């Protein structure tokens, strides 16, 4: 088995060069998808029979929720790869995924809460999905806090990777236990509406938004990771050249 591709994946330089090439195209795609989805969803999708126009929040809420969760698993996986194969790049990806994930989790909570007021009459209820989302936010905060609390970068990486991994086990447990506890104690008063029964006219813009969010997520992750790469590889020759070139460019622009 040839493993060179695996180690090339772990090379920050390779990652930096690849993203330099592909990022513009990906950003364009993300922009197009998000704009289309947003205009379609907010202006053209039909109104929901029961919820009226407040239903349009779905086009923001569902993609954000998806990515908040997916982002967490990506972060934990990156942490695990870092711990096992001691790959520097994957720690950088883990560190970059944390702020993005926290922001998206906050977004999911915010859009959910804002949606809850018109539909349930209150901003917040202690439902399994909502509770576990809140805890996910706490876990993201924990990873971020650990990462920055350590004076030693390596210790910070390892500690936050461990926490991310432990959290991966924890999230489904919390989801299950809240669900179990809640449904047994309070017969379900409120349930999130279920997607599959959705009308295609409503569903297609949602699909576009989800795709758009995925693209956006990848773009943001790459941008954060590139900064991290520069910061940690600043002693290498290639970053030095890059810095020299960019400062020359700035001087050139001034003259």
């Amino acid at each position, binding site marked *: 088995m040839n493993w060179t591709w695996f180690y090339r994946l772990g090379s920050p330089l390779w990652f930096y060069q690849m993203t330099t090439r592909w990022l513009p195209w990906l950003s364009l795609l993300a922009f197009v998808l998000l704009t289309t989805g947003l205009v379609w969803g907010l202006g053209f999708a039909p109104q929901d029979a029961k919820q009226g126009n407040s239903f349009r*929040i779905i086009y923001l809420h569902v993609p954000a929720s998806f990515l908040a969760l997916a982002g967490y698993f990506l972060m934990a996986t990156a942490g695990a790869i870092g711990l096992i194969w001691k790959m520097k790049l994957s720690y950088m990806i883990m560190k970059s995924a944390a702020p993005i994930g926290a922001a998206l989790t906050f977004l999911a909570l915010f859009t959910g809460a804002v949606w809850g007021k018109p539909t349930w009459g209150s901003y917040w209820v202690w439902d399994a999905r909502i509770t576990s989302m809140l805890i996910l936010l706490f876990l993201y905060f924990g990873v971020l806090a650990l990462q920055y609390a350590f004076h030693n970068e390596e210790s910070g990486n390892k500690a936050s990777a461990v926490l991310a991994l432990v959290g991966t086990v924890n999230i489904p447990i919390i989801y299950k236990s809240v669900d179990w506890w809640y449904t047994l104690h309070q017969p379900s008063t409120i349930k999130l509406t279920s997607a599959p029964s959705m009308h295609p006219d409503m569903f297609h813009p949602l699909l576009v938004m989800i795709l758009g969010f995925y693209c956006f997520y990848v773009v943001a992750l790459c*941008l954060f990771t590139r900064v991290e790469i520069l910061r940690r590889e600043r002693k290498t020759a290639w970053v030095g050249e890059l810095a020299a070139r960019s*400062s020359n460019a700035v001087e050139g622009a001034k003259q």
Partner: protein
Amino acid sequence: MKFQFQDVGQMLNMGGHGFYVWSAVIVTLMIIIGLIIRPLIQHRVVLSQIGQDLAREKLRKRVDGENN
């Protein structure tokens, strides 16, 4: 497929749910833009910092060379 609202006012109002929908939209856009802008700024800052460090080091080496 047709545009669901008669005019901009109605679209802003969203049948009484305008506040909820538009605040969600605005926060979403702010977060998306923030997540793109921040690393772009950081990228520039970090590069220029590294550039400055390198320049300073070069200067120091040159001064050391002259002294010796």
